[in-house]
């Protein structure tokens, strides 16, 4: 216990030192460049402060986060069953397997023009992009995780009398959880990327749009401030959601702690 606490403190310390060094280097570079194109850390901090105080930043973070949560939830709810079906049903695999692979190769932002033609400049249009971005990696990872469940695990369950839905929900899917969770994590990064791309192109609130505003006004400090906000959003979700899940999976399934 005390060991892990002290190693955590050590890690915190190195992270802190690393940030100090980075900020110092950035500050020196900004001093040397002396140009509005490379604002100093202080300028960016001020920009963050101003946009936070006016509420612009929080509104943008809120809008983006809400879109992310909704789109990601849909992708998860559809992607896991889709992947399980692809792994377990020859008919489904033959019918839509190539389609899923093909769609997976297309960056989801490519669907934005079509989505706008179909749904107009609406939330639905941008959700289509987010969902498509996250759904395919989640489905592909789930398919692979389910098809790689050790045959002896499933055979053991069948000799105990498990079959059909019982086998799927109480044995196969739990056995595939580490792989599905890796896919879910990948899906999350894809959702974030798709959302930022979508918001940059399609002006309607969110962090992407704030980036565009910064560029329009030639406000490099604001652009960098928003980039930092995106990094923070990604890291907070990672630390608050995915790290605990990973630790729990490592504890129970015995997978290596990543």
């Amino acid at each position: 216990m005390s060991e892990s606490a002290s190693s955590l403190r050590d890690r915190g310390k190195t992270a802190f030192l690393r940030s100090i060094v980075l900020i110092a280097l950035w500050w020196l570079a900004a001093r040397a460049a002396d140009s509005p194109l490379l604002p100093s850390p202080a300028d960016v901090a001020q920009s963050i402060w101003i946009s936070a105080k006016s509420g612009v930043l929080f509104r943008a973070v809120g809008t983006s986060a809400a879109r992310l949560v909704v789109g990601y939830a849909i992708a998860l709810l559809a992607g896991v069953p889709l992947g399980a079906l692809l792994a377990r049903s020859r008919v489904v695999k033959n019918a839509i397997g190539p389609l899923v692979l093909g769609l997976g190769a297309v960056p989801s932002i490519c669907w934005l023009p079509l989505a706008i033609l179909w749904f107009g400049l609406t939330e639905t249009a941008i959700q289509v992009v987010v969902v498509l971005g996250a759904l395919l990696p989640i489905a592909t990872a789930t398919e692979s995780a389910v098809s790689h469940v050790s045959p002896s695990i499933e055979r053991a369950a069948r000799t105990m009398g498990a079959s059909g839905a019982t086998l799927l929900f109480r044995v196969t899917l739990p056995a595939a959880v580490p792989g599905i969770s890796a896919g879910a994590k990948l899906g999350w990064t894809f959702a974030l990327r798709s959302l930022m791309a979508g918001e940059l192109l399609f002006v309607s609130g969110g962090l992407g749009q704030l980036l565009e505003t910064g560029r329009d006004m030639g406000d490099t400090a604001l652009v960098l401030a928003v980039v930092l906000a995106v990094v923070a959003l990604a890291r907070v979700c990672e630390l608050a959601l995915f790290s605990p899940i990973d630790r729990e999976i490592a504890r129970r399934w015995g997978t290596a702690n990543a």
Partner: protein
Amino acid sequence: MNGLFGAGSRALGDADAHAREGAKVVTAGPAISLDHVSCVFQSKNGGGQLALEDISLTVDQGELVCLLGPSGSGKSTLLNVVAGLVKPSSGRVRAGAEDVLGPGPDRAVVFQDAALFPWLTLEENVAFPLKLAAVPEDERNARVESLLRLVHLWHFRDRHPHELSGGMRQRGAIARALANDPAVLLLDEPFGALDAQTRELLHAEVERIHSATRKTMLFVTHSVIEAVRLADRIVLMGTRPGRILDVLTVDLPRPRHSADAEVAELALRAGAAIAREVDKVAREEEGRV
């Protein structure tokens, strides 16, 4: 601590008493019977592989039979046919009086890799088949405890499989297989991946469990010593096609030990009987390289 061990030996005592009673009322008739069973695996290039050819074998109730043979002699296939996991191409398979149509809780299997569910603790693993069979919670808990005590793993009940040694995992798998009180226990090289000392300990454990529960056991191995150490009868199998070469009765007193002179002598005889087959496999595999 003392309390736990005390309860443990009591549980085992109960099992012994139960077994003695059970032995008296054992009904006649084989526990497993195979009639002219053949099994062909279709390969992708259209050809067929005869994994089992015309196997006829009966295993009596309470008997411990070892299937001994070189790699590829169809031992696992035969076990899986009895388990109902593989359908034979022809012939008839019965467990007790019933035809085998698929897997069922009357025939439990212990696999080489234990196949414990990694997301469950040891206790939850042993409880799993009982939950599937809708055994009420009180009874389930009592049964899990007596099974884990039977295999000396009660102290480790809260561990996940990855926190156990290979030998502990196999003992856990045996406890789980015994959970629904199956008529037959099928073991496919359960100790194949373990070191010699652990294996020796587990042999004693299997012997003890067999005499305590009087379960019919079909035990696959490619170790001659293991077969002689454990079996009432040894079925010697050969390759290409997988078939029965001979059946040896092991009439040695129990408990046995791998270092016993009689065990070593019989192992030598059994070894000689399959040496030709092992040679054949080795030659074939060399020829292919």
